[in-house]
């Protein structure tokens, strides 16, 4: 269980002034600005629960994960992860923790990933059988088994991220923090990672917090969504409720696959075109006139076999939720 109470964390930033005359002055005197990164965070996560942490850039998601991992030592508030206080950096806690940072490189640049895995094995005292089994399973799942002995510097970004991912589960952690786990990956690997995570986290009763700008990661893996905006938690509910909010939104989207020479019919011209890619139109429709619009489409022989209805995208719901809380 993770319990966070009244957590505050501030960053100190030194601002440089502009202008040629400031060149020297900037090194002598800079403006010191205190930026509140986390404001009165209260959060409880049960054992085995998977929470998706959602927010815009600079919202405080990674800062919160860093506090939970013990990397940052907040002066106000308290964090308990199981029986541990992260800032004390107890060895037993670190043995059970994994913090995957999609943008940080842990692999030894000049050597193959297997060398880094071997160091990891020695540090976490992983037995030979488990080590082999986990590497075999995860490398096959991510289609990188043939790259384990290729120097890390010769791997693509996506391949390196996959290796980092293997590294992060190698010691069978109980608390997993995932910051952008699918960054740089192709769609097949994203799909594999999500499928793996969903099964692996549940099967091993792992408590997990996942942050991602890719909503699919959150929706497919997490069971609870926590929205954070400017350091504050503004929404905390189940993923199914978040999806329900999307389904119950006042708008729906009608997607039309147009034929060659297609001209938008008159009865659709007053609608907002949310997107247009090649021959695919996405129309935003107020649900109050949905029945009329769909009726017209069904009676239109050019379109009736080439349309489908979608709920409002989750991203838009999240942006609305964030804006409503401003």
């Amino acid at each position: 269980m993770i319990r966070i109470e009244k957590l505050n964390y501030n960053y100190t930033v030194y601002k440089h002034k502009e202008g040629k005359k400031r060149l020297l002055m900037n090194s002598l005197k800079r403006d010191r600005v205190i930026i509140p990164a986390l404001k009165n965070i209260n959060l409880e996560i049960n054992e085995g629960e998977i929470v998706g942490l959602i927010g815009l850039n600079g919202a405080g998601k990674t800062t919160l994960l860093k506090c939970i991992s013990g990397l940052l030592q907040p002066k106000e508030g308290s964090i308990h992860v199981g029986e541990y206080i992260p800032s004390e950096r107890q060895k037993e806690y670190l043995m059970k923790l994994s913090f995957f940072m999609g943008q940080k490189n842990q692999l030894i640049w000049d050597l193959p990933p297997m060398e880094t895995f071997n160091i990891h094995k020695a540090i976490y005292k992983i037995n030979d059988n488990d080590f082999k089994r986990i590497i075999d399973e995860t490398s096959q799942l991510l289609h990188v088994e043939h790259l384990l002995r290729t120097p890390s510097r010769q791997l693509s970004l996506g391949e390196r991220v996959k290796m980092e991912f293997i590294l992060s589960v190698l010691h069978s952690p109980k608390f997993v923090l995932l910051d952008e786990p699918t960054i740089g990956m192709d769609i097949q690997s994203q799909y594999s990672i999500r499928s793996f995570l969903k099964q692996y986290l549940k099967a091993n009763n792992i408590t997990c917090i996942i942050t991602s700008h890719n909503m699919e990661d959150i929706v497919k893996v997490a069971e609870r969504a926590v929205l954070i905006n400017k350091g504050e938690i503004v929404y905390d509910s189940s993923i199914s409720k978040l999806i329900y909010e999307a389904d119950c939104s006042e708008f729906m989207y009608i997607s039309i696959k147009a034929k060659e020479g297609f001209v938008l019919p008159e009865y659709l011209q007053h609608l907002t075109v949310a997107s247009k890619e090649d021959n695919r139109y996405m129309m935003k429709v107020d649900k109050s006139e949905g029945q009329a619009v769909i009726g017209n489409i069904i009676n239109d022989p050019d379109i009736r076999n080439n349309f489908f209805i979608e709920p409002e995208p989750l991203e838009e719901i999240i942006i609305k939720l964030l804006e409503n809380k401003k």
Partner: protein
Amino acid sequence: MMAFISIMRSHISISLTYKMNILFGYISDILYVVLKCYLWLAIANSNPSFAGETNYIITYFIFVSIIMQLTGNRLTIASNILDGSLSNWLLKPFSIFKYELAQQLGRAVMTASRLWIIILAIVAFMSSYIVIWDYNYLVGILFLVLGFFVSFYIALVIQLFAFWLMRVEALQFIYTMFVDILSGGMIPYKYMPAAIKNIAELLPFKFIIQMPIAGFTNTLSSGEILNNVIMAVAYIVALHFIAAFIFKKGLKKYTAMGG
């Protein structure tokens, strides 16, 4: 212990990865020793006050060149603090000090393995200048090991100031100057002005070069050996606690930059 050895081994593997780099490493080792000796030879021959001392000076600086490479270090903790990659190690149940030590020991093992080429070069170019002392390898190696740890911990303490200063290059440069002058790396202790020598005798820098040379060349009495071993161990223990204290304080300042 397995983790420590794994890290050491990986550092050795990195050193062996690039063949041309290994080759140029050998060339730089030879050039460093030979050029330094010829430079001192020129100074000694042109200065009447060094009359009769030429061979001593050449032999001394051969020792300096070899010992400096063994007791020197290239720690990375300051750059890791600056770019936030320290986080990778803070999240592991393994001491960052041990990690740095394992890397430096790996480097020292690699340096030691290259010594044969330096010795061959010395025999080829400088053999007529070498003074044959009654070498005491045991005491020499003992002070070499102590010197390695003293040098490691001083560098570690300096690098840890990166928690506050972010960049420690200037501080590192000051440290290098002190080591050059006070360790005996630039001037042998016997030519130092008495006032400076007396101060240098009390500081830890002498363990980096002067004491290993004195140990190998068997110029220390049993009492001096014992006193200096106690002094070196005391410095290592004190520096370890200072580094641990700074690290603990520094972690409170650490912001794990970079995503």
